[in-house]
């Protein structure tokens, strides 16, 4: 029993990330009809928002500390972060320690701005073009964004630890000790997902968007300017991907190609969930995350060698062949 | 015994009875029109005939063979061609290529791996394609991109593509929908000429009564998925049930 629970828990953090990225992809696809291959890059940029925050907080000036000396007997020069200078040592250290969660505050406007710029600057010209063109141009954009990040942050993964209070494990049952941050990540994702759904469900704006997802033309005929709202949806989707990235950094040290790595998997998730279905994307995200963690159990691996490497793709292939609209997709989406 | 025999076909979509016990017999070398108010099931029937939809019950026999359960391309190879309401053509190809493709389909069947021959060497096919394009007055547009033509030209091209296959049954789905008066007349004339020249069995769905009465020899009136009457155009004109079906619709 514990073993099963453990695998489910182990699948949650990856599943949460998949679900969040797939949710954004589906929002964009459902509202704008655009297949966005740059969505993984948005996830990556989110992660690097956390890195930037950490670097900003750690920006330091030099002071000469008379109380300490180096081995030659000269007074020691000490790097003091500005934040410590401004807010006092205790508050400053806490700020640096908390840079990942604090980055959330900066990430939301930054990502919405990036999403808005992407939509207005590029994507909107591709609404009427074939899906293949959309894939290609966003693929090109993903390469460009990835290279920018590599230029500014280098090619190596950058450690961005969680606040020190949340680095340990928590004893869930007697047998299971689970990393605290992963639990936080799961609840955080659940919160974001709930937020997005509540937004769509209970605001007039959300209602229009949902109606637009169901039948774009009719809503357009009602005289509602769908496009303006959809631009905002692109910003929201980008913010969701960014949030997924920020909070994921303590689990996986961000590197410039993490976007591409997650992109493929999240597309698989979207397809399994059903193109255009938001609940499908979320469900499939968690489902595949958990399946993947079950497949990496030694008992399973010894039974079917290599299954942990391919389980997600295998599921995707089977679903696509037997149920092309995915678990919860509507019929006819993107079928000829 | 007609070339096309539809017997007791039923089709439901959820709670809606789209086709209810439809019987239809199309005789060889006639033009058979199927008319009826909107939602009468005309398009559903057509889609059953070409294999796009499979009915819940009943039989559809074409020249003694069942078409049910066959794929659209198999049904086409049996000799049924279809003209669509909005022309379905190969927009990226030239006009002559559009017509050569059905010629290849007719000669080589549903698939042939002729990857090493050249199109240029297929003189017979080209002649055949040019002959039909002459019939529809499109010889001057041979190398035009099909997508760049007017709707009327696309319609004529689509008909040429169907006719070049020498189908044993040509299904026409509102061939004059959205056409100007003059184009409609030209289309009627075109179909008449081709029937005289090539002898052709046609089943036509049409709203325009002018078209129906100038072409059809038999008319079936569908209403709410069921055939109301089947008769000659003259008898249909004054038929009370037909008037009821159409007027009933008009009053709603």
């Amino acid at each position, binding site marked *: 029993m514990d073993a099963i629970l453990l695998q489910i828990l182990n699948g949650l953090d990856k599943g949460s990330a998949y679900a969040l990225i797939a949710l954004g992809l589906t929002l964009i696809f459902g509202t704008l009809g655009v*297949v966005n291959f740059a969505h993984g890059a948005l996830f990556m940029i989110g992660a690097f928002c956390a890195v930037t925050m950490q670097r900003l907080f750690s920006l330091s000036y030099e002071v000469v500390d008379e109380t300490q000396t180096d081995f030659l007997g000269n007074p020691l020069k000490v790097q003091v972060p500005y934040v410590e200078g401004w807010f006092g040592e205790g508050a400053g250290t806490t700020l640096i320690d908390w840079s990942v969660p604090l980055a959330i505050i900066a990430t939301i406007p930054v990502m919405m701005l990036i999403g808005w710029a992407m939509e207005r600057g*590029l994507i909107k*010209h591709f609404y009427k073009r074939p*899906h*293949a*063109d959309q*894939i*290609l*141009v966003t*693929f*090109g*954009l993903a*390469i*460009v964004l*990835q*290279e920018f990040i*590599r*230029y500014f942050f280098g090619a190596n993964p950058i450690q961005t630890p969680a606040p020190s209070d949340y680095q340990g494990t928590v004893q869930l049952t007697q047998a299971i000790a689970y990393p605290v941050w992963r639990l936080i990540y799961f609840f955080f994702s659940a919160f974001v997902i709930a937020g997005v759904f509540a937004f769509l469900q209970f605001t007039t704006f959300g209602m229009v968007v949902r109606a637009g997802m169901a039948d774009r033309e009719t809503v357009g005929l009602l005289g509602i300017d769908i496009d303006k709202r959809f631009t905002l949806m692109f910003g929201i989707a980008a913010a969701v991907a960014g949030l997924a990235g920020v909070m994921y950094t303590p689990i996986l040290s961000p590197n410039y190609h993490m976007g*591409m790595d997650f992109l493929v998997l999240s*597309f*698989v998730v979207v*397809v399994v969930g059903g193109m255009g279905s938001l609940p499908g994307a979320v469900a499939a995200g968690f489902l595949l995350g958990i399946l993947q963690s079950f497949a990496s159990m030694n008992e399973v691996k010894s039974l079917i*060698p*290599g299954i942990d*490497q*391919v389980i997600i*793709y*295998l599921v*995707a*292939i089977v679903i*696509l062949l037997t149920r*092309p609209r995915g678990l919860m997709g509507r019929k006819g989406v*993107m*079928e*000829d | 015994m007609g070339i096309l025999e539809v017997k007791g076909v039923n089709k439901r979509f959820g709670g809606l009875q789209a086709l209810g016990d439809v019987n239809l017999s199309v005789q060889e070398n006639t033009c058979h029109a199927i008319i009826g108010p909107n939602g009468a099931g005309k398009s559903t029937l057509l889609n059953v005939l070409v294999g796009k939809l499979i009915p819940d019950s009943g039989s559809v026999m074409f020249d003694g063979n069942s078409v049910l359960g066959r794929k*659209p*391309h198999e049904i*086409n*190879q049996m000799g049924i061609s*279809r003209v*669509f309401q909005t022309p*379905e053509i190969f*927009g*990226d*190809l030239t006009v002559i*290529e559009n017509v*050569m493709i059905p010629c*290849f389909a007719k000669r*080589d*069947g*549903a*698939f*042939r*791996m*002729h*990857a*090493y021959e*050249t*199109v240029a060497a297929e003189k017979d096919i080209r002649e055949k394609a040019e002959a039909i394009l002459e019939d529809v007055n499109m010889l001057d547009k041979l190398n035009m991109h099909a997508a760049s033509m007017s709707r009327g030209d696309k319609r004529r091209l689509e008909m040429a593509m169907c006719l070049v*296959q020498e189908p044993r049954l040509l299904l026409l789905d509102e061939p004059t929908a959205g056409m100007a008066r003059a184009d409609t007349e030209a289309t009627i004339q075109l179909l008449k000429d081709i029937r005289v020249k090539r002898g052709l069995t046609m089943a036509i769905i049409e709203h325009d009564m002018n078209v129906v009465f100038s072409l059809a020899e038999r008319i079936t009136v569908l209403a709410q998925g069921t055939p109301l009457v089947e008769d000659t155009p003259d008898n249909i004109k004054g038929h009370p049930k037909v008037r009821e079906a159409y007027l009933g619709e008009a009053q709603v």
Partner: protein
Amino acid sequence: MFGLSQKDTKFLLIVVALTLLTPILLNPFPSESGLAQFNAGYPALMQRFAIYGLMAIGFNILFGLTGYLSFGHAAFLGVGSYAAVWMFKLLSMNVLPAIILATIVSGLFALVIGYISLRRSGIYFSILTLAFAEMSYRLAYSVFTPITNGETGLQLTLSDPRILDSAPEGGSLPVPTLFGLDMNASWTANVGPWDFTFNIGYYFCAVIAILGFYLSLRIFRSPFGMMLRAIKSNQTRMSYTGLNSRPYTLAAFVISGMYAGLAGGLLAAMDPLAGAERMQWTASGEVVLMTIMGGVGTLMGPVIGAGFIKYAENIFSKINESVLHGWFGWLPDGLEDIVVWFFARFVGEGWHLTLGLMFMIVVIALPGGLVEGGQRIARWVRRKSGRETAADETTKPAE
């Protein structure tokens, strides 16, 4: 000639001539000059031009003609490489059996993957091919280690059986040959300040690539090719014309898979090792980039695209800031630094950025790729020189 129209024959002959003269054409700068670093006429790079050109030609048969966008073609390249190296290990260092087996094995592999993937179209097809390729890539790293030698990659060893060859002399690894002609053998001609390297391996690849190009030309001009274009244009009309799209697309898929496998076999023939990283989906993405960049659906475009990307990868990436300082030394100091800084972003390690940007520009504004760009410039030049005739306007790009 060769069953082609006069125009196509001329076109083919030009391509043949250019290919055979590549070692000269790509070395336009004297070896001692400062511009020598732009010379691309060295064997390893020329081989890559031919090999990736061949792969892009094959990819274009699928994507250019039918419009099915596969994100899994690198898997066939990888399988071809493995098959070829195994041939080198087990049978003989002769390259012919190796590339033949590479083509056959990848063809069978493509048959299986294509048969399944082509049940869906559009983005679903793309994702299916992507999923298959990623599976192959990951399995090559894990379960299939006995065949692929995992992360180390498959290499030749002295203890390989090589049943047709005699034991290697001197304890060094044998090199791939074509009936005694070593693939790595080169002959350098010194013409004045210029050095031209003629390499056996390159010419072998070039001949195969020309054959591949010729075959693709035939396919483009064949009824089969016309059917593939028809599928791209309108599948509904296709089936209501009595044609079954599935075997046509499958045939195109298998043919393009065999091109990729052949390319993989040639890669192994030039350098007898094979690694799983060749199968990664980003490698598939590179072929897509090449084809689009050069001009999808055109005959020559994919080759140009492949050449461009490989050139950028090998030449642009070597330009660093000190080289740039050398070029812009004549500028005032402050300006020089700015200009150098700016250009440095796009060369050296930044060449990926250049690639991504150019790719986006092509997709946004030049659907016909570099080929279309060239045609537009040519038309513009003609218009400028006032020699334009009405005929030029209506001439459609044939290539």
